[in-house]
């Protein structure tokens, strides 16, 4: 990200300075202003959903999903140790709910245990699953659409879910074909 930011900003700055030096400062402060307005919108979305997330964890829905996932995890990952499959289930259930913050530490632990087991296949599979987006409800996108005044913010759920399925299924199949156990 550092390289991308530096290269794009630098080239743009030089180009803009050549074309219109007086606009440079205005353009940059405009940028910050826009980021503030987005932060305001995000704050509303997060305050609502982090409250709901806390309730999800407290009510045990997360654990319930982890339990349901046991079978599919066995099919996708093959043989894994008790400990790593536990972390995998918790990681996937959090990711399905869109709780990236909860999922990440579980994912890091799972990768570590899988490495200790010598299970390269499992390591690759978990990473591909996590980076193919398996979130069931695109909450921040729906919230953002609502704050921009969409007529029906939720009508994006189905297209997103279908596209998500495309990336996840492709990912699982490619790992099964190309990564050796």
């Amino acid at each position, binding site marked *: 990200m550092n390289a991308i930011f530096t290269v794009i900003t630098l080239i743009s700055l030089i180009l803009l300075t050549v074309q219109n030096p007086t606009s440079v400062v205005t353009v940059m402060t405009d940028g910050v202003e826009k980021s503030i307005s987005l932060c305001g919108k995000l704050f509303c979305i997060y305050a609502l959903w*982090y409250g709901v997330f806390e*309730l999800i964890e407290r009510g045990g829905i997360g654990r319930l999903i982890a339990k349901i996932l046991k079978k599919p995890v066995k099919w996708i990952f093959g043989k894994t140790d008790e400990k790593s499959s536990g972390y995998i289930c918790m990681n996937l259930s959090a990711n399905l709910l869109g709780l990236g913050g909860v999922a990440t530490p579980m994912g890091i632990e799972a990768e570590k245990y899988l490495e200790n087991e010598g299970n390269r296949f499992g390591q690759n599979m978990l*990473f591909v699953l996590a980076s193919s987006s398996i979130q069931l409800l695109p909450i921040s996108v729906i919230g953002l659409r609502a704050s921009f005044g969409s007529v029906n913010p939720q009508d994006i759920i189905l297209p997103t879910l279908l596209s998500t399925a495309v990336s996840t299924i492709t990912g699982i199949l490619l790992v099964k074909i190309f990564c050796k156990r």
Partner: protein
Amino acid sequence: MSAYVIPLLVITVILSVAVKGGKVYDTFVKGAKKAFPLVLSIFPYLAAIFIMTELFEKSGLSKAIIDLSADFFGFFGIDKSLVPLILLKPFSGSGSLGILSKIMTDYGVDSYLSRCACAIYGSSETVFYVGAVYYSKCKSKPPVLPFLISLISNFLATVFACFICRIM
């Protein structure tokens, strides 16, 4: 149909806590409290990204790069206005969120381009970021192959999103 998903989810969630005798109000407040530090922590990233995207666009560099890659993405049925989002998504979550909100501002929230951008944003992940974090406690370096697989799967989802948003 989809209009019922979120209300039903929230009702179920509240009930799941209430039937166990949990304190719904206290629990909700405890979670909502986390929103403030979260937004504060991503603000500097968003500020930097928006400075970059504003400069990127006003300098004409954005148009040059989009025109250069338009044929490649056009071949897959991807509109060229979505190119910046697609190129940045694997690297930065807050960066692509910034671009997504810019697309909604520029083209209107219910336009094909905005809906398509939403589906792309929601169906792909920050591959390089996830990779760096997930493998952070492993001793060996992460292999290249799964990264390639993730990028290919995400790209297919993007192509599919551009198609499905035309008919749905």
